[in-house]
């Protein structure tokens, strides 16, 4: 079947005349240039000195300041690799937590019938709807009572407890779009819900998992406010907190260093996306369907 599909896709690709394909690439590249612009600008800014970064407006710096990189790396209270490692620890655990807890919950919502399903589902969606600012103080008090301030627990534990409805809802929608015959077939083979989840649904939801992992990575990697509140020891700071330490919006700022380290901190995200995106396409179409 996989073979037939690729032949089908190939057939479809061939159908387009050469000129149309060229035009399409041209269009895609033009849009791509717009998308690439910020990255190029960031690299250029990271190579200008703090004093001239806003006055030297061209993309090609007049005076090069590669010193921003070593200076940015070392001029905060901790060396920048400390912040990168902290962020990587938090991100890795958050992804693991989200994948496990949200896929379990999503499977129950998507494929099982149980008492209170609709109510719980509505509750789950409801938790996405209240603006977070008003939860700040009660959550801070809660984590203080638990003795979790200045640790990573307030940032991690919620991920292991599926508190972000976004990922549950995402997986629910993916699971619901899988044919029900799969479950029936598994049941006839004698699989209980756990085996069905593990052996049938999970592998087919790889794109949803990859999406969740990528989105979690980006959200957690860029998160500023929560680490700001819960971490007080500079040794524990994450990358966004560190980046913000280069600047004081009312006084002076080390712009060059900030841009340089901003670029450095993008590398893991981009790397993770490029590594993870091949799983985005490992859907039913490639794993086959019996």
């Amino acid at each position: 079947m996989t073979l037939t599909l690729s032949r089908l896709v190939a057939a479809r690709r061939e159908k387009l005349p050469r000129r149309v394909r060229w035009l399409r690439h041209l269009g895609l590249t033009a849009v791509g240039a717009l998308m690439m612009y910020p990255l190029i600008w960031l690299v250029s800014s990271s190579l200008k000195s703090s004093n001239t970064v806003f006055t030297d407006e061209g993309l090609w710096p007049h005076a090069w300041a590669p010193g921003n990189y070593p200076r940015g790396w070392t001029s905060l209270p901790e060396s920048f690799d400390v912040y990168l490692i902290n962020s990587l620890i938090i991100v890795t655990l958050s992804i693991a937590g989200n994948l496990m807890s949200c896929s379990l919950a999503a499977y129950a919502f998507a494929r099982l019938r149980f008492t209170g399903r609709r109510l719980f589902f509505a509750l789950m969606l409801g938790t996405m709807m209240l603006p977070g600012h008003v939860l700040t103080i009660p959550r801070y008090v809660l984590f203080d009572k638990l003795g979790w301030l200045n640790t990573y627990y307030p940032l991690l534990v919620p991920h292991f407890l599926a508190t972000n409805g976004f990922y549950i809802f995402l997986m629910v929608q993916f699971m619901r779009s899988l044919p029900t015959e799969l479950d029936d077939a598994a049941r006839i083979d004698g699989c209980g819900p756990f085996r069905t989840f593990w052996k049938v649904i999970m592998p087919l939801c790889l794109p949803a998992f990859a999406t969740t992992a990528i989105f979690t990575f980006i959200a957690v990697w860029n998160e500023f406010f929560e680490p700001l509140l819960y971490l007080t020891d500079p040794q524990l700071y994450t990358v966004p907190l560190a980046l913000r330490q280069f600047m004081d919006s009312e006084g002076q700022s080390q712009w060059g260093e900030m841009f340089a380290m901003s670029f450095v901190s993008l590398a893991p995200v981009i790397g993770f996306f490029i590594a993870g995106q091949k799983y985005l396409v490992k859907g039913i179409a490639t794993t086959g369907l019996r």
Partner: protein
Amino acid sequence: MNTVDRRGALKLAGLAGLAATLPACGRGFGGGGDQKGDAVELNMVWWGDAARAEKTQKALDLFHTANPGIRVRTEYQDSSPYKDKLVTRFAAGDPPDLMAMRTDSLREYANRGALLDLAQQGGKLDLSGLTDSARGLGVVGRQNFGVPSGLNAIGFVVDKALTDKFGVQIPDGDTWSWEDLATFAKQVTTASGGKVYGTNFEVWTIANLIVWTRQHGEDFYTADGKLGITAATMTGWLAMVQKMRADKAFPPAGFIDPNGGASAAQSYIAKKAIASQIIPTNNFLTFDKVCGGQLQLLRIPGETQGARRGQSIDTPALWSVAAKSKHPAETLTLLNFLVNDVAGAKAAGTTRGVPASRPVATAITPGLETDDQRASAYLAELQNEKLPPSYSYPIGASKLTNILKSISTEVEFGRKTPAAGAAEFVDAGQKALSA
């Protein structure tokens, strides 16, 4: 099922394993907190950037040497996240011991019992080196809730490189009037062929407006914590700017992004888009550096023509102590060090303004960079003159900047007349202060 499945499962198991082992590493998971048992630990927080942090840490190292029984755990952020974290910690009953406090938020905290009254602390805190006006910055009635972390004022900077280039004479900075500013600015714009605008200052910054109000014989904030500016004075402020805008002395509507950041490197004067602006004097060195070293520091216009003097001595931030601090005595020792220790002040530099204590300021001035010395001299002269008293910002004062920013933008784009904008501001301002 096939290999993809098994590999996926393995990876998941691997991640789970990682999750289980990493917490054992300690950092960030409650372990490894090896506190020195005998030292009292203080928590001190402020806003600023890494450069300020480095200087502050040098001062604290001196403090640690002198006071081995006290350890200071510091934390700093950019000003706006700083504010959010500070109030969250107070609300949750977990305030820092010593903190930087904005002048316009002081009474919001003090009047609600969150801060320690420093006037009650007897000999632990020596404020005798401060002038009355400097000490008055943290005073609310008979109580004192903050000590200035340094002193500054606002000043008018003019880029002499530009005025020389266009052959425009800079007026005398001690005696110039607002009309002189308008004439001068118009000359610059004309001479530059419209490439450089003569001046721009933040219409919505309360500190600027306060000087204008005082020059007109009114108190912006009155002694009893009300809004003192009249609609007429306010109209004058907005109308003056609109007039300059119409004359092209001021940039056109929308030219300046009011939220573009106030730092020197981002400023329009650094980009040579304008020739003069108002800055806090403690930033003079940074501004002069990014502008190419030709800045002149002038007083605010209108000081010799108005009903009375308008300029005043201000502070970029106050130091306050939390009422709930578990170690008030040690915190006061630290605060006393920051105010009175010459070596500490030398290490900390002038990023927070000129030291509030005059003997300390005199002692460290010779060692400062030239531009810092110029800013210090500017301030010292002001301190020697008789300036009308100013009163602490009342509760609700921190709302006024946003209100004024919104109204001044409407006036800028001609959606409201200066008179209508002024009436609206006075009305909204009075409500904000009484709520």
